[in-house]
Each structure stands twice: as structure tokens, then as C-alpha cells.
């Protein structure tokens, strides 16, 4: 059993959970994820790790409340234990001295991009962090991000902070840096990943995305997480979750993510990212 130490709604609909999972915390690297179950009869869901403390034996995740399991997780009281926290799963994000790296995070990815930015900074990269949200009140961890970034840029769809619009504004933002960007790393919802890759392709900048297909075991056993990357089938849980965003078959991924749409009640709280992404 894994004890929940903190559960705080950090911004509307996104919950910061800190869990006691010492074995996981000891091995954790940026870009990896865990699989959680909120209760004994519950589903297994993959969640990226936003921070961890190997000494205290804790991991911190950002859970966006979109369905049954995330809703249960969000409503858990601190002190309670949940039955499964397994990981770290997936391959860590590749961290090297790349030069200048643009880290782009949206929704839960604002959290999970943090350890990546931190590790990049430790390798002496210049780190430009771009965070995206529907409105300014949905940003969190800006202080933490600022400490590990050379610059922070905001995009809001309502224009309440930084650039107005969606990730379609990325090329302008990059231009405004007046220095070349050597790599883009994107964490967040599928539409952010896709749209970000679409707009970076013409710029010829290598773009790494952390994919989030449906998963069950997270160890390469079931194959539900398969994605097509550069015309070969990959299992995102063991071959990824990071892939070259310019090679991903996005239509297929978006389609496969909808498999259980009908079965699972979709609460009104979804981010309506798709709609907005199309517009901007």
C-alpha cells in the first residue's frame, strides 16, 4: 500500500498528489511515469511523475480530473493508502548538452516538464520554458520552473497572460528568442503534443513528445499502448513514452485514445483542447 501524503487542488481540476513509494522514488528519472490504482477494484492508469524525493521516498504527480479513476484520486483524503503505485516505467527523457532547449508544458505537463527542465539545466543547457493554459489562473509551479529556466513564456487562450491563443504561436515565440533552438520537448495532452509537432516541423527542430495512449500493465505485456512511429509499431510504455513528434501517426493515436469514450462517462471538465487547437 502506498500512503498519500499530500492531495491538493493546485489549480482548478488539477490535483497535486504526493505519495509514499520509496522504491519508485529511488529509481525515478525525468520523463518516466508510474501506474496507479485508486482502489482495489479500480483501473490502472499511467501518470507522469512531476517530482520526487529519493531520501524521503516520495513521488509527486499532477492528476487532471477527466474520468472515473482520476476523479477518485482527486477526492482521496491525505493519510489514506492506495493499492498500486508501480514504476518508474518507460524510458527516461534523453538529457544531454543540446545547447538551447525549449520545454513546452500544458495541463499536467506543466508539472512533468519540470524535472526535465531541471535536468537539462544541470547539464548546462539554456532552457526556455513555455507553458500553456486556457487562462492565467490555470498556471502553477511557475516559481519552480523559473528557477530551472533561462526564460519563461506563457500562452493563454484568453490572453490573460503572455501570448494569446494556443501552441500555434510557437514559431513566433521561437523567433522572439533571437537565438536558435536545438530541441523541443513537449509534455501534456495529445493535442498539445500533436499541434506542437505540427508547427515545429517546418522549423526543422527536433521535437520530442511524451505520448499518452491508453495503457494497462505498462511493461510491454498487453500491447494496448501501441502507436505507429515512422511506420513501425511501438509499445509506448516500453519503447517510449518519448518519441519523435514528427514521426508519430497522430490520427491513429487520437483514434485509439477514444476507444472507451462511450463506456466512460466524460465529465464536463475536459479541457476542450481539440477545439481550441484547431482554431489557433
Amino acid at each position, binding site marked *: 500500500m502506498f500512503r498519500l501524503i499530500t492531495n491538493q487542488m493546485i489549480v482548478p481540476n488539477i490535483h497535486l498528489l504526493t505519495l509514499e513509494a520509496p522504491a519508485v522514488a529511488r529509481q525515478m528519472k525525468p520523463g518516466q511515469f508510474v501506474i496507479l*490504482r485508486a482502489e482495489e*477494484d479500480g483501473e490502472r492508469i499511467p501518470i507522469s511523475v512531476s517530482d520526487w524525493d529519493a531520501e524521503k521516498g516520495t513521488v509527486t504527480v499532477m492528476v487532471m480530473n477527466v474520468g472515473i479513476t482520476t476523479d477518485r484520486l482527486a477526492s482521496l483524503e491525505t493519510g489514506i493508502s492506495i493499492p498500486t503505485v508501480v514504476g518508474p*516505467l518507460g524510458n527516461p527523457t534523453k538529457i544531454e548538452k543540446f545547447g538551447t532547449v525549449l520545454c513546452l508544458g500544458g495541463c499536467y505537463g506543466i508539472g512533468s516538464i519540470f524535472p526535465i527542465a531541471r535536468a537539462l539545466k544541470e547539464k548546462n543547457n539554456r532552457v526556455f520554458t513555455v507553458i500553456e493554459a486556457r487562462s492565467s489562473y490555470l498556471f502553477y509551479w511557475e516559481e519552480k520552473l523559473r528557477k530551472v529556466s533561462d526564460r519563461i513564456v506563457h500562452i493563454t487562450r484568453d490572453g490573460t497572460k503572455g501570448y494569446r491563443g494556443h501552441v500555434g504561436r510557437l514559431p513566433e515565440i521561437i523567433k522572439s528568442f533571437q537565438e536558435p533552438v536545438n530541441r523541443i520537448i513537449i509534455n501534456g495532452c495529445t493535442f498539445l503534443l500533436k499541434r506542437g509537432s505540427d508547427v515545429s516541423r517546418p522549423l526543422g527542430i527536433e521535437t520530442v513528445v511524451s505520448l499518452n495512449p491508453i495503457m494497462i500493465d505498462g*511493461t510491454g*505485456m*498487453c500491447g494496448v499502448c501501441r502507436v*505507429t512511429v515512422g511506420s513501425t509499431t511501438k509499445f509506448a510504455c516500453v519503447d517510449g513514452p518519448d518519441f519523435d513528434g514528427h514521426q508519430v501517426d497522430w490520427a491513429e493515436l487520437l483514434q485509439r485514445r477514444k*476507444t472507451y469514450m462511450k*463506456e*466512460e462517462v466524460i465529465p464536463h471538465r475536459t479541457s476542450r483542447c481539440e477545439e481550441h487547437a484547431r482554431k489557433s
Partner: protein
Amino acid sequence: MSEPKPKKVDLNRRGMPKQLPEVRRHNFNEVALGYPVKIAVEEAERCLQCKKPKCVLKCPVEIDIPGFIKSISDRNFTAGARILKQKNCLPAVCGRVCPQEEQCEEACVLLKKGGQIAIGRLERFLADWEAGQGELEMPKISPFTGRKVAVVGGGPAGLTVAGDLIKLGHQVTIFEALHEMGGVLTYGIPEFRLPKAIVNREVDYLKKLGVKVVKDFVVGKTRTVESILEEFDAVFIGSGAGLPWFMKIPGENLNGVYSANEYLTRMNLMKGFLFPRFNTPIKNHKRVAVIGGGNVAMDCARVALRLGAETRIVYRRSRKELPARLEEIENAEEEGVVFDFLTLPIKYAGDENGWVKEIECLRMKLGEPDSSGRRRPIPIEGSEFTLPMDAVICAIGNSPNPLISAVTPGLEVGKWGNIVADEETGKTSMERVWAGGDVVTGAATVILAMGAGRKAARSIHEYLSSL
């Protein structure tokens, strides 16, 4: 041969009561109901008690078959259960899922006359009888040796190693990647063939003997083999053959195309058939095709059928070559699974929403036998046809998962990703590391995995005793 003079040999192999096909196709309860005492005794009395029993030679763990059968005819069930347990720590499982018709029962001298003893059913009878007695008898446990063994994987291989070594006084910890123990017994084989209560009972028994169980722990990820070796004197890897194969044909990533592992895991491990009481969703498909002809394919088909789908098995050879157990083929047929033999899927086509809607197939004919001795299927040109379908389950095979070997440099791996281990001892190329079961042999059987576990346990014990 030293068989007793045939008195009047009773060749009437006693049938085992089953749920009727039209009833069981609507439920997930066990299909075969087990022998009542009277019939078990009758069946046991048929055994000739051969002096040199051939049946024993074909049981991979060499159970004293005439011995346990005799205790049934003597109605001394306690003694019989003890005999079973000497060689087989999971008799309730093996009695149900062993391919007896090609093992012990195939070697029974009465086979020639068509009256081979139902050894598996008798084994199951004893194991179930014992379970019905409440508290299980506790074996003697040697005093703690001070040695620690880590077992990777809670399937039949790992459970066997754990059971054997704990009795010899070593401390044993099992690390299991999933949130339930049992391996394929839990996530693969469906409830109606192997009730999960039986698997849980066996795992609880091991825990009572003192085996420590750590679930939700992926060796190679949560901790490497090397790091485990720092804390433990020996490691046994029994991580199974869990990597699903696909056919690599167009359309395989459409929605509604599953690997057998995904389909069965949703159903068994995650109890999808109880959705929405359990959260893991499962679709109510109308027409399901299962590709393949082994036990795994039969299990998928029978699960899909129970969820109300019109279900077919699509297999490229003929009925004779089906690798599944005969009993399960017959059960599937009785329940109404349709078989398309000599049929090869070549492409899946989807609808506008990305859901599979039909399978394009080729008709096959059988040619000369191939290296496996089975006649090779050859496509018949121009025989393309389509089967409308809203789900496809690919059950064409599994190989060992490379997750551990990929991060364990000292571990020698074979062509299929299998860990290379000595057949007699289970020793791998790495010091203090043993392996056995499907991860070494590729997908095989429960009893072979247990046999490999037993041998490895013996070798590990020898090593630990030499320290």
C-alpha cells in the same frame, strides 16, 4: 511387463459433470464441476496399479500416480493429497489445466483400449477435497538458514521455487510486476476454466509458510537484478513469456483489434466482465474473430462468447492441427464458437471512425509437413474473401518480455529473447542467477514451468548449502 493379470478391466472412463453448454455460455462460473466422491472412487478403482507405471514417466514432475490413485480407492484422501503435494505444489491447478492427454494419460496402459485413467480429474478431485477440509496441513519447515532468495515473477515457476525453498529454511521474497500474483493463471486463463479463488488459495498458503510477497514491483525498472543481488544470495527469474505477437498486417492498430493478452487481462486481472462494478471497461462487441488455434485462442473465444458476441476462431490449418487441448476445443464447439479453418487473415479494414469492420482473408490448403511435423498451410490464389467483424483478438503467440534482459548485461539471451538457462539446473550465464519457466522455454505449460522451478530450487539449495 509386470502388469497384474487383467481381472476384469473396467474400461469405462468416468465422465465429469459439466455445466450444460447453453447454460455456461452465459456465465463465468467453472465449466467442469469435478467428480463427486463416489465417481472418483469408481474411477480410481479402474487403475491397474501397474508395478512399473508408465504414466509416471510422462508426468513432468513425476507424481506417484498409482500411489495417489490407490489412496482414493482406499478412501484415504488425506494420504492421497499428501502424495500429490510431495511433487506438485499446485495440484488443483494442474488437475484442471495440464494437457493430460499428451502427458500422463497418454502413457496410461489402458489408452490402447480407450479406457485410460482420468488422472487429471482424480488429481483435481483430491486437491479440491483437501481445500474443502478448511485449514491445510502445514509442512515441516527447516530452521532458518540465514540465506535470502529473491524470486522474480509470481507465476507457476516462481511459486514453485518459493514453495520449495521456504520449506528448506531459506528466506524467500517474490517480486511481482502486477498487482495480483499467479502470472498467467491470474491474468490469462479465464475464471470458467481456473477459478481465481484456487490461485489465491495457493498464494495464501505460501504466505502462511512465510514467503514474502512484494507486488507492484517491476524488476529491471523498480530495481535491477544486480541491485537485488546485493541484498539477496540468489535470484530466480520466472518472468514468463508475456510479449504479445502481432501479424504485422495492415490495419492491426485499428480500434477493436486486441492482443490476446490485452483482452484477457481486461477480463481476468481487471475483471472487465464485471464492468462497471469494476472500473476497467470492456466493449460489448457483436461479432468477434479470434486469430489462432491454441489454448489462448480458445480462452479468448469463449470469453467473447460469454459476453454475448457471435464468435469465430480463424485458423490457418485444419482442425487436426489445432494446438489447443482437445477438451477445450470440444468445450468451445459445444458452446457455439464457429471455426473457420484453413483461413488466413491478410488485412483488417476499418470504418470512418477507425474501428475495425472487416477482415480480409485467404483460403489455405495443406501442403507437405514442415519442420514441426505439421502440414504447412499454403494460400490458394484468388481465394480472397471478407468476414464482417467488429473486433479481432490476435492470439498467435507470445515470447519472453525483454524488459529484464535489456538492463541486465551479464545475462545471456537466446534468439527469441528467452533467457538461456541450463535445462537441469536452471543456471544462467550470470553468477547467483537462475531462471525457468516460459522465460526460458518460450510459451509452454504450467506443469513444465513448475518442473523447471523445482529443478532450479534444488540447484539453488545446493548452492546455498555450499556457502
